[in-house]
C-alpha cells in the first residue's frame, strides 16, 4: 500500500543551522511528491512539489527514486520557518488525492 513516512515528530535547530526534514515513501508507480506547511494559526499550504524543481523560501527537495525519499532541506534556518511540515504523495491517477505523512514540527530557536 502507498505510504509516506516522516520519522521525526519534532526537529529543533538553532537559527542559521542547516535543516533536513526526512520523508520516505512507498509506491510502485511514479508518484508526485509535495511538501505542505502549516504555520501557526494558518491553513495548510503548498510549499513545493518535486516536478517544479523550485526553491521556495530557501527550501529545496530532491526526489530520489532509488532511496524512495523526498527530503526537505534548507541551508540556513530562520525563526519564521518554525511550523508543521507534511510530506505528501499523489498517485497521479484520476483522483490526485494526497497521502500524507504524519508531519514534522520544526522549531527554530533564536
Amino acid at each position, binding site marked *: 500500500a502507498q505510504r*509516506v513516512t516522516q520519522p521525526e515528530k519534532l526537529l529543533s535547530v538553532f537559527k542559521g543551522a542547516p535543516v533536513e526534514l526526512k520523508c520516505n515513501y512507498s509506491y510502485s508507480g511514479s508518484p508526485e511528491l509535495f511538501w505542505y506547511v502549516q504555520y501557526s494559526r494558518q491553513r*495548510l*499550504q503548498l510549499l513545493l512539489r518535486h516536478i517544479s524543481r523550485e526553491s521556495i523560501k530557501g527550501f529545496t527537495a530532491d526526489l530520489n527514486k532509488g532511496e524512495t525519499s523526498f527530503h526537505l532541506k534548507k541551508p540556513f534556518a530562520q525563526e519564521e520557518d518554525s511550523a508543521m511540515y*507534511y510530506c505528501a504523495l499523489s498517485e497521479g491517477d484520476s483522483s490526485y*488525492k494526497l497521502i500524507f505523512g504524519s*508531519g514534522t514540527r520544526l522549531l527554530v530557536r533564536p
Partner: protein
Amino acid sequence: EAGVTQFPSHSVIEKGQTVTLRCDPISGHDNLYWYRRVMGKEIKFLLHFVKESKQDESGMPNNRFLAERTGGTYSTLKVQPAELEDSGVYFCASSQEIWTGAIEQYFGPGTRLTVT
C-alpha cells in the same frame, strides 16, 4: 481572491447527534476534496468530487458519513450519528481541472469536531 472556506470552525456535539460540515471551494475549482486528521494520526483522504460527481470515496470510513455537492459548488459532509472516534479536524481542499496539470490543492482552515 477568497480562499476555501469552511463552516463551522468548531463544533462540539454529543455522541449520537448529527453534524453537518460545509465547504465552499475557490470559485471555478471543479475538484473538491475532504480530508480529516484524528488525534495523533496523519491527515487522511476521505473523498473527492469532480463538480457534483463523486470521483473517489475510498476513504470514507463508514456509512455514517454522507457527502454531497449539489450543483457542483459547495459541499457538505454529514456525520450521523456521530461517534467519539469521529473527533478530529476535517479539512476541505479544492483544485482546478486536473487535465491542465494544475493539481495544487488549496486547503480550507478546517473544522474542529469534538464528539463528547
